[in-house]
């Protein structure tokens, strides 16, 4: 198999150190099998505390009404939908890495895909909270489902982009979850087989769905992966396209823009990769997985960031140009006065967005910078801030001063419960991530083993030798290695 997927020596190795299969298993299972560290506990408890505060914030909002937030008659959506779009965007990297990169046969994905997929699932979970709890009457949220009912021909409104959201996000979540879990199966079986405690055996035994590693299992597993990859690929593009329809199909100047679908998708990948960077830079350090999540991985992802960041930048400029060129006084006002004008109430947010998303990633044109961990971490945070502001700029700075100047809004700043809800989703996200990193292998064991023999450092070195050999020589010498 290794031979079939020949890889050039020019490419740096994706697994460092003198690893063999057993060593890989040991390295990756160690954090799962060892007792959680002090650091893990601290992080976990902080996350749970945040989650609890988030639950309190939402409870207040449900009991006392949306008036617990500072939204008003002009600004119907603020932090809630900003956070929703932000989290959905973050939830794009995982599936992109798993699905699209799988189809494009990018070997480097194996080091990061598990964590990224997990991140995707958690981010979508967080995202889902906002459209649910932002409803004025959340107990009637089930009205958005097209279920058979006894209310005559009462049906959902298929014209509404919000309804499309319901379908898009639930589908995306389901497929992502399946993808992630099916990838986990062989690894769970490994953990089961290594387990010494009874409960661990049971837990991983049940979780592994009776995986035995038989050829049949592998065959079906591979097929399933391909099918799911095929399913997810359009979803990566469609989810954020549909989220962008929430705005693009409206009449609000600043929302009503045909460029939104590609612009949103690029932005989503941009922010998703930034979030992956944030997590992995820390994870690889804390769990001592630097040999699996190497600087190569970091650099490759930084390249994706500068690509998508630049697409986003071009989109910003195009949108601005079109606002002027369209000769629509309302749209041009939204851009010129609500955004570009630094002395307008929210002018600052536009320039934070521009600075974080367009200017700052340009530093990654330099290889040295792409491989600088501290800078990468810093940049990933900056980009996430910038992308949050992008959504804020789109949502709030468009509606707060739109068509009728009489309805222009007073200054909108969030209440403690709005901030609390957002913090709470961080709590949810990190609680899940901490639990995940404790109970599941954060690197896809089985998949890294796939690439070990062609991308592992020691194997790559040996390849020098191999490349000089003739095919017959090679077969004679290495043939027995297969299936080890």
């Amino acid at each position, binding site marked *: 198999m290794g031979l079939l997927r020949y890889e050039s020596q020019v490419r740096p190795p994706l697994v460092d150190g003198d690893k063999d299969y057993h060593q890989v298993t040991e390295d990756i299972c160690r954090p799962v099998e060892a007792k959680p560290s002090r650091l893990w506990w601290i992080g976990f408890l902080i996350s749970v505390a945040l989650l609890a505060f988030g639950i309190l914030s939402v409870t207040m909002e449900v009991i006392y009404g949306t008036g617990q937030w500072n939204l008003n008659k002009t600004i*119907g959506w603020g932090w809630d939908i900003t956070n929703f779009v932000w989290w959905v965007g973050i939830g794009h990297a995982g599936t992109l890495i798993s699905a699209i990169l799988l189809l494009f046969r990018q070997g480097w994905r194996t080091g990061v895909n598990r964590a990224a997929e997990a991140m995707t699932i958690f981010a979508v979970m967080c995202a889902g909270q906002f459209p649910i709890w932002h409803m004025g009457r959340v107990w009637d949220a089930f009205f958005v489902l097209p279920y058979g009912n006894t209310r005559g021909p009462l049906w*959902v409104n298929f014209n509404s982009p*919000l309804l499309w959201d319901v379908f898009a996000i639930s589908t995306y979540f389901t497929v992502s979850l399946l993808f992630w879990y099916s990838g986990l199966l062989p690894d769970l079986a490994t953990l089961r087989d290594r387990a010494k405690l009874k409960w661990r055996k049971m837990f991983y035994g049940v979780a592994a769905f009776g995986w035995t590693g038989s050829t049949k299992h592998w065959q079906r597993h591979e097929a399933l992966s391909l099918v799911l990859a095929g399913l997810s690929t359009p979803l990566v593009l469609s989810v954020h396209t549909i989220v962008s329809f929430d705005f693009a199909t409206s009449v*609000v100047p600043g929302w009503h823009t045909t460029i939104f679908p590609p612009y949103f998708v690029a932005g989503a990948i941009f922010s998703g990769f930034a979030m992956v960077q944030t997590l992995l830079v820390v994870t690889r350090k804390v769990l001592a997985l630097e040999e699996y999540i190497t600087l190569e991985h970091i650099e490759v992802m930084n390249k994706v960031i500068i690509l998508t960041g630049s697409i986003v930048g071009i989109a910003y400029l195009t949108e601005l140009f079109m606002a002027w060129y369209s000769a629509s006084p309302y749209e*041009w006002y939204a851009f010129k006065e609500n955004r570009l004008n630094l002395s307008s109430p929210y002018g600052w947010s536009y320039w934070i967005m521009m600075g974080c998303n367009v200017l700052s990633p340009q530093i990654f044109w330099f290889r040295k910078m792409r491989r600088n961990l501290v800078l990468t971490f810093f940049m990933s945070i900056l980009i996430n801030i910038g992308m949050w502001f992008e959504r804020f700029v789109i949502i709030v700075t468009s509606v707060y001063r739109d068509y009728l100047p009489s309805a222009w809004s007073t200054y909108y700043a969030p209440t403690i419960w709005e901030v609390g809800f957002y913090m709470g989703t961080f709590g949810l996200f990190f609680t899940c991530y901490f639990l995940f990193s404790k109970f599941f292998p954060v690197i896809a064991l089985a998949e890294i083993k796939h690439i070990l023999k062609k991308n592992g450092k020691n194997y790559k070195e040996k390849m020098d030798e191999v490349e000089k050999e003739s095919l017959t020589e090679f077969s004679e010498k290495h043939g027995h290695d297969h299936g080890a």
Partner: protein
Amino acid sequence: MNKYWQSFGEVNDPDNFQKKVEDEFREELPFEDMDSKGLLDAKSPRRDFLKYLGFSTAAATLAASCKTPVRKAIPFANKPENIIPGEAKYYATTYVQDGDVVPILAKVRDGRPIKIEGNDLSLFTNGGTTARAQASVLDLYDTYRNRFPTRKVGDKHEESTYEFLDKTIGEAIAGLAGKSVVLLTSSIVSPSTKDIISKFANLKHVQYDAVSYSGMLEANEASGFGKKLPSYNFGEAKVIVGLGADFLGTWLSPLENALGYTKGRKINEKNPEMSKHYQFESHLSTTGASADERITHRPSETGAVALALLAALDGSVVAPAIADAKLKAGIVKVAADLKANSGKALVVSGSNDVNVQIIVNAINNAVGAYGTTIDWTRPVNYRQGIDKDVKALVADMEAGNVGALLIYGANPAYDYYDAAKFKSALAKVKVTVSFNERWDETTELCGYNLPTHHYLESWGDAEPKTGITSFIQPTIYPLFKTRPYQTSLLRWSGNATDYDSYLKTYWAARLQSDDAYNKALQDGILVEAGGAGATYSSASVAAAASAIASIKKGVKTEVVLYQKVSIGTGTGATNPWLQELPDAITKATWDNYAMISMAKAKELGVKLDMDYEYYPKKPVFKFTVGKAEVELPILVIPGMNADTIAIAVGYGRGEKLGKTASGAGKNVYPFTSFNGNNVDYYAADVTITDMNRKEKIAQTQIHNSYEGRVEVVRETTLATFKKNPNAIPDYRTEMTEDYAKKTSDFRREATLYPDHGQPGIKWGMAIDMNACYGCGACVVACHAENNVSVVGKSEVLRYHDMHWLRIDRYFVSDNENPDDLKGVVFQPMMCQHCDNAPCENVCPVAATNHSSEGINQMAYNRCIGTRYCANNCPFKVRRFNWSDYTGADSFAHNQDQELVGKLDPVIHQMNDELTRMVLNPDVTVRSRGVMEKCSFCVQRTQAAKLKAKKENRVLADGDAKTACQQACAGDAIVFGNVHDKASAVSKMREENTQRSFYVLEQLHVLPNVTYLAKVRNTDEIIEDAHHGGEEKHEGATVPAAEKKEEANH
């Protein structure tokens, strides 16, 4: 009137029964001294605490497991005649408040009056109403009304009975030993009451108006008309000059004035002529906002302006020196225009100075107003108070000559220019009786209070104009132990009849038959012959002119006091609907404040920057005049006189009037003064001190300019309109061509969605912006009709106001100088019921959808509250229930949030059992989390259709009227079936194609509300009026931005 009862106790021994009911749970749990000290130090030690805890837990469990008592409405065993449950009845009656009279119909549903409509039979009001008349029905259910008669024992007012009080007060009055008995009232318009007063032996009657027209009354007397006020006929006037008179807002009879005024303002496009309105004033008033040309001056120059005008007209007096070039030129121009329109001109002045009014009379004589635009055959009775009489009374009281003071409708302890003096004088009166519905500032000081009925509970009559009487009949059995004050007067004058029988006897005798009386009662209006009129005499002019010439023009800042349309002199302050009605000019609610000019703002160092506009906190200044001082936040308004500060009266009320009144604003009546003849409602020499702090003002609109957005409001001048009458239709045609290039099907081509046929009725509305002067009657009517929530200042501050209908106000200023105000545009804005509604297609659950009759409708119980519709509404007319404003929520006790969004007491007030009686049972009370908006009064259109169907006829035009339409005195709002070519709305659209436009038509949302462009009657030619949109947008937005920059410095 039927009596409804439940038990024999209630029927046979009502007092005792009531007491028993009240006393049922009298004893409170003995948790004494627990609240402040904490458990350990409490009188009840720990063990007791446990006992209580155990008991209360058990009790709570029991209580929770028991069913909460279900209160059932008991149906009639025998159907009372003429009452059909669920069907409204209308009774003709009259809104009377301190001399203000509006003939109305009270809509009564199942025994409760719930809505006020104008009485169409009344010609002088033409079925119109005012905001205050509309809101008065809520006063009936005010929890702060006095519920029983009281007498003062020590420092406390104790409940008493009428029998006891009749005896006590009767004896007290009898034993006054020669000291006089005085009845102090606001202006009394009731002929029968005047009859009672005249028959009360030795009773001296003094009338006192909070804002007095004494100067005018005396001036008219000096001019030979007697101490009266004439009827004004604004409709006949081609040139109208207001000298500080807010005649569309608060002056004399704004409803009547507006009715005539708007008649002259409506344009017939075949022959575009309209009246010309000049306004000289110190601050921007509601009336000034509608003026074609405004010229500002200092309040102390009022007399000089009148004098100069008279001098320019006929030279009979010496013109005073006027320094301000603009003012001087304005006077010359106005004089010329008046001369040219002699016999078709009218000059009115809001001054309370007798000399100024004498000069104004001379002006009116010079322009031939008498007999044409001023009618002395029907003098009006709205205001009758003479300042000197009141001053004499206070001096009399001070001297100890007054033995008994009976007070009805007057509140001098609050609004007298020297309230402290009145209070000390009152203390010297032995017997003080108040007949007040509420515990106002004066009633608190009186020894007895015998609360009178609310007018909806009363019998009565009102004669607003000589020979025109409007009758009052009760629409509900009195809610509390109240009694008409007339009955008290009758008793104490030795007459045992009650006022209702007295009234009947009085009128039956006057009309010479019971039938005639009953007919008059049913119609509500009785028209008899007017007076003979009177002739003008110029005898007093010279003296007045020299008196005015001696008035010194102020040099420092001056303050002018004005009334708000909503609060008036202060009588509206207790009414939540009125407190929440945004002021026409400032769009502020729940407060008074100091309106200052842009120049003054600059001088005071107030920066008109982003912070000023986008945050509700406004800088606070202390204003001092003599000993009176008040600290108020400021609002900067264009078009003010540079050195004038304007503050509304009627705020800063006493605690006992309830939190709605007492929580809002400051009292500025102490700024009034007595000039030797009359009370002046302005003061010169104001000292302004910066308090270096800020206070919040709750405005419903923060941005003032329409930023050159041509499609939002269409506004032009008469000269421009004449020059280019087709600017709007051309623009629209061009747009139609753009949209229907391929198919020429305008409706269908620009949208993806199918066009649904509307085969039957199609409801539509047309609004003439020329006839709208921003009074807000429609806004209050909408509140009352549609159970629109009041949210209180704290929520208005958060931009959570719930008005379904708002009146957008835009200032039109000179491009270079925003302070140079050219005009103000009022645009009533409600749901436009778009046929291609952007809100409808974004709702995920189809909670908002379109009816086949063109109404954009809300299914409240389907709404899940995503607010997407509100975001996508270009008109921003959708309102969301952010909190539990109505108590209709699924969660109990959730109006008590403390940390965020604490609700004002008014929310609780509006939700108590009594106040909720005002709710319209035909309209759902929305729970929180639900979106709501204007429904085109769908309950009314449905009812009208049903009625037509039952009568087996086609729906006629006018069968269904929206609440706003009905309330509008100027008939600015017309509603009806646009498929009916003969309907008023169709005709209005057809006859006004040159002015008709849809707001934001280019969005192709296909609204069902048309507006007629506002036309100002000036000679200015607005360049580029043709085609505002495409070519102009750059030019239109850039100066607007620059203007903002300039405002920012």
